[in-house]
């Protein structure tokens, strides 16, 4: 319980504001006010990158019986789990009772916009760096209000390896004058 309290208080240090722009109408904006870790600092996270129309999960899962067995998925066939898949399966992270939330190893429930807590269970050092603004992208003010991204904005939780990108054009090599 003490650890849970500590985790919670850490969590409260981070003020999370869900931007309504990309959020589906069903998602209630979840805003927590708390003393920020650095005076004048405000952390802002955009909503989690759900596939279109997939959330809330309970729309479908309410009527489905949880099935913890490892199998070829019928509906979520786009998910190829490549994230320590030998040791894990869906319900290690997704809550079996309420599919609209996640859960930590402790059993503590977690909303999707706090998913970094879940990632941080294993990747503690990354979570620490992310909090410090050192892992991941930050935008905003270097001396004030900053926006964070969630881990899952860059790393698909099911296949966290960063996807290759097409590079922008290379510089032009130096050219001698023509003539």
């Amino acid at each position: 319980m003490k650890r849970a309290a500590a985790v919670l208080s850490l969590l409260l240090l981070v003020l999370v504001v869900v931007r309504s722009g990309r959020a589906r109408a069903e998602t209630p904006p979840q805003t927590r006010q708390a003393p920020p870790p650095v005076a004048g600092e405000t952390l802002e996270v955009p909503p989690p990158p759900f596939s279109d129309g997939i959330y809330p999960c309970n729309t479908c899962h309410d009527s489905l019986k949880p099935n913890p067995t490892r199998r070829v998925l019928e509906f979520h066939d786009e998910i190829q789990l490549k994230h320590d898949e030998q040791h894990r399966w869906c319900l290690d992270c997704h809550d079996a009772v309420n599919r609209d939330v996640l859960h930590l190893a402790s059993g503590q429930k977690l909303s999707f916009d706090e998913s970094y807590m879940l990632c941080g269970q294993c990747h503690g050092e990354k979570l620490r760096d992310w909090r410090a603004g050192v892992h991941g992208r930050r935008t905003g003010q270097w001396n004030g209000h900053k926006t964070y991204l969630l881990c899952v904005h860059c790393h698909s939780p099911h296949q966290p390896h960063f996807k290759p990108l097409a590079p922008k054009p290379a510089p032009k090599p130096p050219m001698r004058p023509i003539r």
Partner: protein
Amino acid sequence: MNELRQFSRFVSGSVRLVTRGNGAYWLWLFVLTVLILSGAEAFARQVRSGLVVTAMRDQVSWGFYIGNFTFLVGVAAAAVVLVIPAYVYNWKPIREIVIFGELLAVSAIVMCLLFVLVDIGRPDRFWHLLPIVGHMNFPQSILAWDVLVLNLYFIVNFIVVTHILYRAFHGKHYSKKVVVPLVLLSIPMAVGIHTVTAFLYNGLAARPYWNSSILAPQFLASAFCSGPAILLAVVQLLRRFTKFEIQDEAIWKVAEMMAYATFINLFLHGAEAFKEYYSNTEHALYTRYWFQGIGEHRTLVPYAWTAVVLNVAAFILFITPKARKNVVLLNVGCLATYAGCYIDKGMGLIIPGLTPDALGEIYEYYPSIAELRVAAGVFALGFLVFTLMLKVAVPILLGEFHGTKPATTS
């Protein structure tokens, strides 16, 4: 009043002198004028379109212009350093040549300053470099120092030359009170301009090829080769085409000095090459680019070895008494020295210093047509200045043109 009349006679006489000459003289002037006009046109184009007409780029940001500048600073310095034996040891034979050395120095400095002017991106802002109206970044910037010492050196030499000639014109010996201190000042200044120019490169830790403490001594050594080489050619021409008498002894003595200078130059180069190749650190890259090329980038390699061959050949010719007393071999030696030092201290200094660039990229620089034309124009202008000054100086020194008799041409 009399003084003023004398001065106007000096000026009008000088004008008469330079406007008279044989066909060869006029052909020479014509060639120079054509080159100057072509250079001016190319420069105008460069000012309008920018330095994009040169082959210089961010990777190799200095090129042919700055190479020529560096070489000519050496010429300017060395020409005057001949003053040392003449005045310190009061060795008469060389003393006759000294005045030509100073004329050469004046022309060389004119070319140096012009090469800086054509190299900068904003020649319209050259006045930013001047004291009082502009802002000179003292004492940090070696380039600010260089501009200062080059201008002072120019002024000192110009005063000495004009004073000697003007007095000779009036049939008087020059004033020792004026000339001796200035000449004595110009000796350390000659060493100074070249040392400062070497420090210009030497001080840049970003460019390992230049960041070697041997650079300043090596600059001086190569200056003592190239400066006298030009001077020897000039005095021989004078001996041939004017009544000016210059003793063989003086020429041989200068040639002998050049042998030592060439040796020291080669020795210092060798010492540097040894350091680079034996220690074989990542800094050896630039020396390797010059002598061997890197991969398929081998544009400069033939020039590097040509310079080595020329300098060694010149050393052998000058160190052999029989060879240096032979007019043909002497001139071959002069030409070899001149060309060897020109390659070495121009392109051979600047380009490997910047290739590969600070981030390891290799852009093979060689001058564009525009650069060649502008540079030829600057050289032609320098030669024109030198020719016209000689045209006036020679008759004065021969006593053919002076304040009491009407001027005659040579």
